[in-house]
């Protein structure tokens, strides 16, 4: 990609308009290297800030690395034993992965669906109401995850929460129910929390894309007799394919590694084993027990999985586009 960048012509008096990417330039190594030279500072910073930590994490994942190794600074290589332990842990297959993957699928679908619906709504509003709705959803977005989680915990509190009181008042429930002890109700609450917190980003991003869809195409389709449902699926969705790809990839990454929203829920920090997800499980198993090597192995696997998901998305969503 970078090779297509053309070095701008240096104006040399009257000769300048003549030379337009002639073969003369290719012979000059400095000109060819120039894009890389210009990128070098940024690449160096990225290598130091991103690549080296990644390499270190991978090296840690091959060691039994605990507090003792931190103090002494010695390496303690154990090969792939950490990975072996991860894959043979029954909790991973029966609880952690189903919770994480199932939750991520539902959360991404919910966030994108609600976000798109709100974006379509906002696109059809006048400037005043668009500002009002935009500000309202921005507040949901701006709320810190910790604060939001506590609000949901209060709403569903067993003894004094509004949900239990309402259900009892209308006679659907005889006595208080602790919604946090059941795996499915627990994740239903997390789902509400995460969708509520995540949809504004989707809505704003898709709204920006929606406003860029040429009005003429929509009018032409309307003249041809397409209803609003048809116009949405046949014109808007194909036009916004890249926007959807970005939004879905980002949401997937976020929802896969959701931590605070689970950890802070009653029982979510490990005492309710049925509610463990990948984030909390890896924290409890590694950092809680000073097993940094094991934690690094989980981090490496998570990175690989998310990279895989991203590649699949990018390929399917942008197949016809030029990459």
């Amino acid at each position: 990609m970078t090779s297509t960048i053309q070095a701008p012509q240096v104006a040399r008096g009257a000769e300048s308009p003549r030379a337009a990417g002639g073969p003369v330039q290719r012979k000059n190594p400095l000109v060819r290297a120039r894009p890389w030279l210009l990128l070098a500072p940024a690449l160096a910073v990225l290598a130091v800030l991103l690549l080296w930590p990644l390499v270190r994490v991978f090296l840690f994942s091959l060691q039994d690395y605990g507090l003792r190794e931190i103090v002494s600074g010695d390496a303690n290589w154990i090969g792939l034993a950490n990975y072996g332990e991860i894959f043979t842990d029954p909790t991973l297959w029966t609880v952690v992965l189903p919770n994480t993957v199932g939750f991520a699928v539902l959360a991404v679908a919910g966030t994108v669906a609600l976000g798109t619906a709100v974006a379509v709504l906002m696109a059809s509003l006048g400037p005043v109401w668009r500002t009002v709705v935009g500000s309202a959803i921005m507040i949901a977005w701006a709320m810190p995850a910790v604060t939001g989680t506590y609000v949901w915990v209060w709403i569903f509190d067993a003894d004094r929460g509004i949900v239990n009181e309402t259900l009892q008042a209308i006679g659907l429930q005889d006595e208080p129910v602790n919604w946090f002890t059941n795996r499915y109700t627990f994740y239903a609450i997390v789902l509400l929390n995460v969708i509520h917190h995540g949809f504004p980003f989707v809505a704003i991003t898709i709204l920006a894309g929606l406003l860029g869809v040429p009005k003429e195409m929509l009018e032409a389709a309307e003249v041809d007799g397409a209803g609003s449902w048809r116009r949405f699926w046949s014109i808007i969705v194909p036009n916004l394919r890249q926007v959807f790809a970005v939004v879905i990839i980002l949401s997937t990454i976020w929802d896969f590694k959701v931590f605070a929203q689970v950890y802070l829920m009653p029982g979510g920090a490990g005492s309710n084993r049925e509610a463990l997800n990948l984030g909390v499980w890896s924290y409890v198993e590694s950092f809680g027990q000073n097993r940094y090597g094991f934690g690094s192995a989980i981090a490496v696997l998570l990175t690989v999985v998310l990279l895989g998901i991203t590649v699949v998305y990018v390929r399917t969503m942008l197949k016809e586009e030029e990459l």
Partner: protein
Amino acid sequence: MKRRLLPVAVLATAAFGLTACSGGSNADSGDVSAEGETLSVWIMEGTNPDSEAFFDDVAEAFTEETGAELDVEFVQWADAHDRFVTSIAGGTTPDVAETGTTWTAEFADAGALAPIGDFVEDEGLGGDLVEGLVASGTYDDELYGMPWYAGVRSLVYRSDIFEELGLEAPASWDDIVAAGEAVKAAHPEMMAFAVPGDAEFPVYPWVWGAGGEVAEQDGDEWVSGLDSAESQDGIAFYTGLATEHGFSSAGATTWKETDVLDNFSQGNVAMALMGSWTPAAIVEKNAELEGKFAATPIPGKDGGIAPSVLGGSHLSMFSTAKNPDLAWEFIKLMTTGEFAEQWGEQSGYFPGQASLLAETMESDDPLVAPFATQLVEGGGTVPVTPKYGAVQAKKTTNTAIQAILSGQKTVEQATADAAAEMNEIMNGD
């Protein structure tokens, strides 16, 4: 600023002078002269509501004694463990730090702490330290944590309601059930006895009170006793308060100890196991409760006192300390004599020096004496092994209790699973 502090500083110096004189063997300690040096110290935030002023006094006295400056940094309990680990990794540990009793063995095992047993012997303090804190501060027969302050959980109850119903402080398990039934009948809006499902320390008194053990060392091996008949008996009684007798609530299934404190302060709870540091917090949250609650040692199954975990903090010297003698001067200043006593009074904890604790024992305060009795006659400790931190991180005991309370598992199944998990973690390498 300076002018306002001056009288206090004079007082503090005077106070220190007194203890220095009465100490006897302290005569040679004046040798430490560290003019121009600075001792860095980490202290947990929130134990003493007025710790800034307290440490201003300590700093004055410390500089007076040694010539060195004191640099105290306050650390939140919640981030403290992570901060210790990152500072150990980066080689930026303080010279001295407050370490929670369950962390001392862990950091000592990692080689981050310096042994202080010789200092203690030289001062002749060996016999004058609270035993439970010495046990948790000892790793591989070496003392790494200097006992500083201790707290213990006992049975806290609403004395106004007990009086109204003509009840006595419970002295056995049957008394607890009888009192609970009476409270439940007269005050159905209250929780007669709170059974929090995400709390570990309120569980062990019932295990020990029934004659069971959490875990015992057998040679090199640790064996959890949570699945013994006695332990199951105790845990069945404790969880039965919620599941059979309905003294607790559905919400309490996922409560932490802080939730118990909040609800007791709001007047929703009649009986609960709470720490010796909580009465001040309860009154601070709800002044109306002042004088309306009391404490009593946790009863064993058929009477007597059931042991309860003795918690608290050590002062530990890190192996990176530049001047160990100076660091020890500070530790001694904090953990013995005037300042130790003052800290205990201000924070509501008991001093880690046995002779000071004995003085506290003579108190007839209804919210001090029962805790002191519990501490001295019924102080227990969780297994002293660096691996126990991993058991706590995994919430092994909490998981068992929560599973029983929520109906996921029976007592037998939950305790068997917990014991198996403990054995696996504590004997893993």
